[in-house]
């Protein structure tokens, strides 16, 4: 094996390695999508962020406009303080509404921005005042069950003369128990 042949093969080997690394970075990792140019950061306080994580996307009208930078806990107000970085190209009014949504039923959570009507725009370091917490599935189910239970209660009271009419209400509650949550 002469030296030029070895050099060639080692060159091919290293080039393959570089291609694989680039492939991992671009196609598999989020290096490209994680890159936003100039940004400004604003904070928003939520009572519950659910399973929101740093690097989660920030979307407005479905378009990614930024990324969650950090999530901290404020021990004075007992709230979660989410710092988000928004692309400099997009400006939002001061009274923008920040929500935490879930992509799909079990997908990852992201921050959704809904523009308000204020003339002034959000600046670096501003705080978004109007926020809505993440939906906690257990809370929602328990509220739903609670309201359902009080409804059936009313049904029973309004039709207390006839016992046979109570039956549909009962079947309803069993249906609820079988619901695929």
């Amino acid at each position, binding site marked *: *094996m002469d*030296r030029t042949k*070895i*050099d060639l*093969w*080692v060159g*091919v*080997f*290293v080039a*393959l*390695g570089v*291609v*694989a*690394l680039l*492939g*991992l*970075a671009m*196609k*598999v*990792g*989020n*290096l490209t*999508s*994680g890159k936003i140019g100039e940004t400004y950061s604003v904070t928003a306080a939520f009572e519950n962020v659910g399973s929101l994580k740093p*690097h989660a996307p920030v979307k407005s009208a479905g378009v990614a406009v930024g990324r969650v930078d950090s999530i901290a806990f404020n021990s004075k107000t007992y709230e979660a303080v989410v710092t988000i970085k928004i692309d400099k190209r997009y400006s939002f009014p001061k009274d923008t509404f920040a929500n935490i949504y879930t992509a799909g039923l*079990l997908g*990852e959570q992201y921050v959704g921005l809904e523009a308000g009507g204020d003339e002034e725009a959000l600046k670096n370091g501003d705080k978004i005042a109007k926020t809505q917490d993440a939906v906690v599935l257990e809370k929602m189910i328990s509220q739903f069950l609670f309201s359902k239970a009080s409804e059936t209660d009313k049904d029973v009271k309004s039709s207390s003369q006839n016992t046979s009419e109570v039956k549909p209400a009962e079947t309803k509650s069993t249906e609820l128990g079988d619901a695929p949550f």
Partner: protein
Amino acid sequence: MTKSNPLVSIIKTLQGIGHRMVERIWRLGAGARLFFLTIVYSGESFKRFHLTMREIYSTGVMSLLIIIVSAFFVGMVLALQGYNTLQKYGSSEAIGVLVSLSLVRELGPVVTALLFAGRAGTAITAEIGLMKTTEQLSAMEMMAVNPIARVVAPRFWAGVISMPILATLFSMVGILGGYIVAVPLIGVDEGAFWSQMQANVDFQSDIVNGIIKSLVFGVACTMIALFEGFDAPPTAEGVSRATTRTVVISSLTVLGFDFVLTSFMMVI
């Protein structure tokens, strides 16, 4: 001589344990010394880089085939098995995430290191062991050529350079194998496959950490192979035993280091 004193047999057993313990520690120390000397004398393997180049050819390039073929099959099996479980929960699109994360974080570095120990580590041990048996190393010393600088260091650096490249290739080829099973064969949506993968694989904490792992495995595997070869008794049997030990110790070291590194990376 009359009858075996129980006290004597206890002392004999303790002596045996102590002897083996001292032997192990001595070998560890000798290995560390060889590692240190390799670092000290590695100037030549960069000044005369074609020495290292030749070793990269025999450890890295020659391992390409086994790495690529096994990566392809590992990726395909991961996709098949993952699909089996994921479809029960109606989230078969997450198969891309499953395949890529398990390859990039764990299987890529670890399986590459195990294959490397079997394919290249044994070759290094046998080569150096035979050099010692045929007194080539002593001959070098007679000619005032430092065998560590001339023989050990280039092989060490070749292993350290080759391992991350092989591991990255393993991950990438494995993901391609998983893609081939998941998208054309099973029929998972292609867009969901890649986009979920991109949303969940982080460059810093997944890909770079995997490469750091493979770098550590590269140092460990190559150093073990070199030391076993350098330390082999100069007989045919000694060399064969040293080769076996290289595979066993490298595999155990890789798996142990993998746990330690993973737990450290979890904290950060």
